[in-house]
């Protein structure tokens, strides 16, 4: 349904080209939930925004191919993109506190989107807005529809944003860290809601997050990004249970576990590379414990079946490292 091939996004800066996304390819099937995970600055959001023409920087260069239902949408005119955005592809944003225009009621804002894409009358669109608000779990939607964004809590506002994104029955929902700005209990509710809505609307979802917990909860398949490049791609079960890339090991290791005796929070050593000088070879190389000489060459995505990774370690080496880890982990 959505097929991205070799997406590259770079910004011309005074310090040279900033390669924010560097050769990203993935597919999203019908009714599939794809998770894109990575640290801040790994290019995951920029990739999504550039796909939809939401990166409005005169210094940007976008190349590659993005096919949505077989139609190339990269390089469409602004007007053509307007019918795609909000119509076939809905978006949910990170910070619900600032994502809504403060001076209009939430109902007005949902009606605005519905009327931009359909020829419903104001009254019909309003009815639909009330219905949507009810569906996303806002109590008393008939009166809440006339309230302003500042009269809602963060979680409720995110529900409004979700209702808005769903208002035109999109085939694809792109959620950019939809739970990052919310507190933990609200996070779980919003994720549940998104799964529920995905079931009833049958849309596919691309969810961007830096939280492996969100991936485990939501995603069918996962793309792990590092420094604008895909490090590992595969089905959620495989990537979370049998991660192949050392960076994914680090990410998974960094999830604190309640049942672990190891009290110390695990971190990945070093800091994320600056996108201004990503090394020629493996981007993760400078931070990798298992760096080898060959890592100066850029690894390509490869692997058995549909579980791919970009790492030079052989299967035997990975096995050895992982078993040594689990022994060490058990001993501490």
């Amino acid at each position: 349904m959505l097929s991205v091939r070799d997406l590259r996004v770079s910004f011309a800066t005074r310090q040279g080209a900033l390669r924010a996304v560097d050769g990203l390819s993935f597919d999203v099937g019908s009714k599939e939930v794809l998770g894109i995970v990575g640290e801040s600055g790994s290019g995951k959001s920029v990739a999504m925004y550039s796909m939809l023409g939401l990166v409005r920087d005169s210094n940007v260069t976008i190349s590659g191919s993005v096919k949505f239902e077989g139609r190339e949408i990269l390089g469409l005119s602004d007007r053509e993109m307007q019918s795609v955005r909000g119509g076939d592809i809905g978006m949910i944003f990170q910070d619900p506190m600032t994502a809504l225009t403060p001076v209009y009621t939430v109902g007005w804002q949902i009606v605005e989107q519905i009327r931009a894409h359909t020829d419903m009358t104001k009254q019909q669109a309003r009815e639909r807005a009330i219905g949507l608000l009810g569906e996303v779990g806002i109590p008393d939607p008939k009166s809440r529809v006339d309230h302003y964004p500042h009269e809602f809590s963060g979680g409720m506002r995110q529900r409004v944003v979700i209702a808005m994104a769903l208002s035109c029955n999109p085939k694809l929902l792109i959620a950019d860290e939809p739970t990052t700005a919310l507190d933990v209990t609200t996070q779980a509710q919003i994720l549940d809601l998104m799964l529920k809505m995905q079931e009833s609307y049958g849309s596919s979802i691309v969810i961007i997050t830096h939280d492996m917990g969100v991936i485990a909860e939501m995603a069918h398949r996962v793309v792990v990004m590092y420094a604008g490049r895909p490090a590992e791609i595969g089905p959620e079960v495989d990537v979370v249970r049998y991660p192949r890339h050392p960076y994914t090991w680090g990410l998974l290791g960094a999830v604190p576990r309640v049942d672990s005796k190891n009290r110390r929070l695990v971190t990945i050593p070093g800091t994320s590379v600056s996108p201004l000088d990503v090394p020629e070879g493996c981007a993760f190389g400078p931070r990798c414990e298992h760096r080898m000489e060959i890592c100066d060459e850029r690894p390509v995505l490869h692997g058995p079946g549909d579980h791919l990774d970009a790492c030079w370690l052989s299967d035997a080496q990975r096995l050895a490292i992982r078993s040594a880890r689990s022994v060490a982990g058990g001993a501490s």
Partner: protein
Amino acid sequence: MRSFIIRRLISAVLVLFAISVMVFLIFFATPGVDPAARIAGRSATPQILEQVRAAFGLNRPIPIRYLLMMEHLFIKHDLTSYVNVGDRVLPQILQAAPVTLSLVIGAAVIWLIVGVLGGVVAAANRGKFIDPLIMFVGIAAVSVPAYWLGEVVNYFTQSKFHSSIFSWVPSSGYVSPTTNPWQWALHLLFPWLTLAALYAGIYARVLRAELVNAMNEDYVRTARAKGLSERRILLRHALRCSLISIVSLFGLDFGALIGGAALLTEVVMGLPGIGMLTYNALQNLDLPVLMGCVMYGAFFIVLANAVVDVLYAWLDPRVRLA
């Protein structure tokens, strides 16, 4: 919303009271100054001084004096100038006020239209040739002093080209709209443009900056993700939110101008408005007139601010609760 308006009006009345006390104290309780001598003017005889002392109760306690003064101003309306003997203050102000109101309201309409249009066009064409052009014209209009611009306009319309292309421009002065609306507008046209130039420049620049900021806000990204057109995003979302700061700016400017800050334009253009009245009173040290003008100015500034706050609440729902 209604309770907001009522609350706001009550506080406006309180502010007016406070201002009247302040003004009174400045004029009548400044240490080392004999208020009677001030009120009576430069060449006052002892008889007149006695008369003034009696009229304003200057040998009685300060609160009484305040009340007497307010009585003269607001109840008996008989505050009198001692410089131009016999001239009552209130009729002078009532005569001057329509001139100032005509000048400022007309100019405000022009500068709002030109300023908002300029700001929106500049923001919509950011990075193109027209944006820096508008901003340059804006800064030029802001930098030119009103008295200089006024003199230049007078020079061209009243003398240099008065016999050719500007032959239709009447000589300076004021015609009441009730006697002849067309002449009223014609007489005020160039004063309007002169006064509006400065403010149109400021407003265009402020609005452009606000719009450019707003276009980087998260809600604009949401609006784009909704599939709205750029024009609609700019006008319905970004402009609507940016108008809030324009309105507060407008309240301050408008109130101050009505209150007499259009003095330079009035004097240059020969319009007998409040600014001119204040200017003349200052030159003659005509204290009663001066005090009347200050009170009048304060009244309009406070009123304009109250109206702005109500407008504010209408534009920005978040203000209503506070």
